[in-house]
């Protein structure tokens, strides 16, 4: 069809550390050694927490949870690029980043044992809790971004979500609102290739997820999500742009969910072991460790020491978690409304009377 061309668009991809740990020095971000090491510690801690939780879950000491193994570079790299005053608006597989921002290890244990106490991160008030309804948190991020702008704060927002979330209507509405409002929001898509059993190419026919930004005249970029440096750099650039009034960005981090969707899932039903093994070879931790080694920041001794330190830290958290017993049984009545309501209070009394009667019968 002969026609007039109205515009062209392109989408690009970035990698700084390749699978062998080779560095593209021209792109290496400026970080202090402390930051470099902190990033590694964050990733390693997250991996250890994941593994420990898996054991606890298998032993019946924890409920269902969604492991993040394999996605540590994406989560921690993005978190590192954020300021404390930025808002971290996660989905349900973003504990690595939350840990980097100071969420206590017990939080995820409590959360996955069925306690709202696990959503309380008093040291990190701008780290929001897990959003279970896929895609819903993206709109909160837009509103938060707008609020920051409105209040004249130079804080920005990073919201995380999966490849599956890009199919939700809320994804679309959020990106459109953010673009129209030029809200300081980074939409960080953890494209881990699967949404439970649905592979990425059946989720949407687009070649990339990054190109979905074109629909909103928004910058969209793909990064190697197993490359912590590329993730950091892309997120930092997007945050800088957001802070300076340049509006939102969509980042697609190409990574992989190395474990099951949740501990209730059996991935052998829908994907091959070869595929999983191929992605293990791209393990973000291995690659980043090589980078640290090449910069003379790391060696076997330090690795051992850090592993031991982390194991102890996790063990202590598990202990605190398992010893915790102060769950106020009628707490839900405290948080229906901020103001006391007589009807709710009457229900609380009936509830407590029943609990007491049952206890005395038992």
């Amino acid at each position, binding site marked *: 069809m002969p026609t007039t061309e109205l515009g062209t668009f392109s989408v690009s991809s970035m990698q700084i550390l390749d699978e062998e740990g080779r560095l593209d020095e021209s792109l290496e971000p400026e970080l202090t050694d402390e930051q470099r090491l902190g990033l590694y510690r964050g990733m390693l801690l997250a991996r250890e927490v994941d593994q420990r939780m898996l054991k606890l879950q298998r032993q019946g000491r924890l409920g269902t949870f969604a492991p993040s193994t394999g996605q540590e570079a994406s989560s921690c790299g993005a978190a590192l690029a954020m300021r404390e005053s930025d808002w971290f608006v996660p989905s349900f597989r973003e504990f690595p980043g939350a840990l980097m921002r100071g969420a206590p290890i017990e939080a995820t244990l409590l959360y996955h044992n069925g306690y709202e106490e696990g959503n309380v991160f008093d040291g990190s008030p701008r780290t929001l809790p897990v959003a279970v309804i896929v895609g819903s948190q993206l709109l909160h991020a837009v509103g938060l971004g707008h609020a920051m702008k409105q209040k004249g704060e130079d804080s920005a927002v990073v919201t995380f979500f999966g490849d599956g979330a890009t199919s939700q209507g809320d994804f679309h*509405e959020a990106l459109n609102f953010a673009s129209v409002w030029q809200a300081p929001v980074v939409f960080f898509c953890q494209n881990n290739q699967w949404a439970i059993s649905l592979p990425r190419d059946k989720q949407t026919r687009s070649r990339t997820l990054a190109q979905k930004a074109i629909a909103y005249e928004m910058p969209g970029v793909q990064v190697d999500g197993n490359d912590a440096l590329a993730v950091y750099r892309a997120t930092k650039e997007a945050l800088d742009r957001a802070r300076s009034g340049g509006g939102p960005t969509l980042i697609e981090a190409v990574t992989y969910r190395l474990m099951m969707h949740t501990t209730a899932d059996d991935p052998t039903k829908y994907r091959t072991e070869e595929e999983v093994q191929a992605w293990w070879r791209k393990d973000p931790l291995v690659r980043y460790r090589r980078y640290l080694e090449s910069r003379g920041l790391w060696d076997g001794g330090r690795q051992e020491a850090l592993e031991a330190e982390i194991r102890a830290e996790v063990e202590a958290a598990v202990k605190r978690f398992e010893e915790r017993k102060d769950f106020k049984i009628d707490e839900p009545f405290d948080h229906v409304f901020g103001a006391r*309501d007589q009807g709710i209070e009457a229900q609380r009394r009936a509830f407590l009377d029943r609990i007491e009667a049952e206890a005395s019968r038992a």
Partner: protein
Amino acid sequence: MPKLNMVQAINLALHEEMERDESVVLLGEDIGPDEGVFRVTAGLWKKFGARRVLDTPLAESGIVGAAIGMALGGLRPVAEIQFSGFSMLALPQLEGNASRYRSRTQGRHSVPMVVRMPYGGGVRALEHHSESKEAIFGHIPGLRVVIPSTPRNARALLLAAIRDPDPVVFMEPKHSYRAFKEEVPEEPEVMPLGKAHVALEGEDLTLVVWGALLRPALAAAQAVRDARGARVEVLDLLSINPLDGEAIAASVKKTGRCVVAQEAARHLGLGSEVIARINDEALMYLEAPVGRLTHFDVVTPYFGRELSYMPNAARIEEAVLETLDF
């Protein structure tokens, strides 16, 4: 005291609260230069500018979802859904997030926001423009649902809703928007949320209503008084969640008879809950079954037929007489 209609009274409350509190922002479709399809936001965009009066893209989940984020971020958003018929699109965000943030974080975060929406029938409007879905919102714990019935209480309840620390669905009976005027105090007046109001005292029967049915209920009460000398107490619920069960029980204990009238479909409507509250607290005082005047369990008919299906003063009077004569 100026006499205002409900649109003016709501507009007044918005003006007052935006002046008083910098963090109050409005968002919705066509609320800016167009001043809202019912002109509820008249003058606000001109006065407070596009920074605080945001015309949004056409997306209700977007409006309410973004408002949640604004509230988390320290603003006090007042969102408008153009017609409540489109509010189901915002329900996932209301049910899934707005109503839960406080409880989810054990009070560390809350979502102080108001979602205004005109609702109800009788205005010869197109499909989806005449529904009454208060029972759906009312069933969601953590979500306040408020329905004013007069200009004065609309202003006072909206001020309370905006100042409340939690999400409030504020359903405006559009049939009453311009139907009558009422004196509204010069100074901002704030009514507590969660309380019903005895709009007319009586001893012989309790007539429970809300929203646009208050006026026909009062007319029916007068007609019954004229015809029979019976004194009907009219209880205006004002708050759908939480419901003022004490006020319902207290009145029914006094009168022994009750009629509840609603514009919504019968099955699983608020009238059923009113009856359940009477069952819980005052059943033994009842001298007759509670009369239920409702819409029918049919898909809301287009406006050519709608008046045949809706409660009105004569039908309320009928229902009251029937319950009195039981």
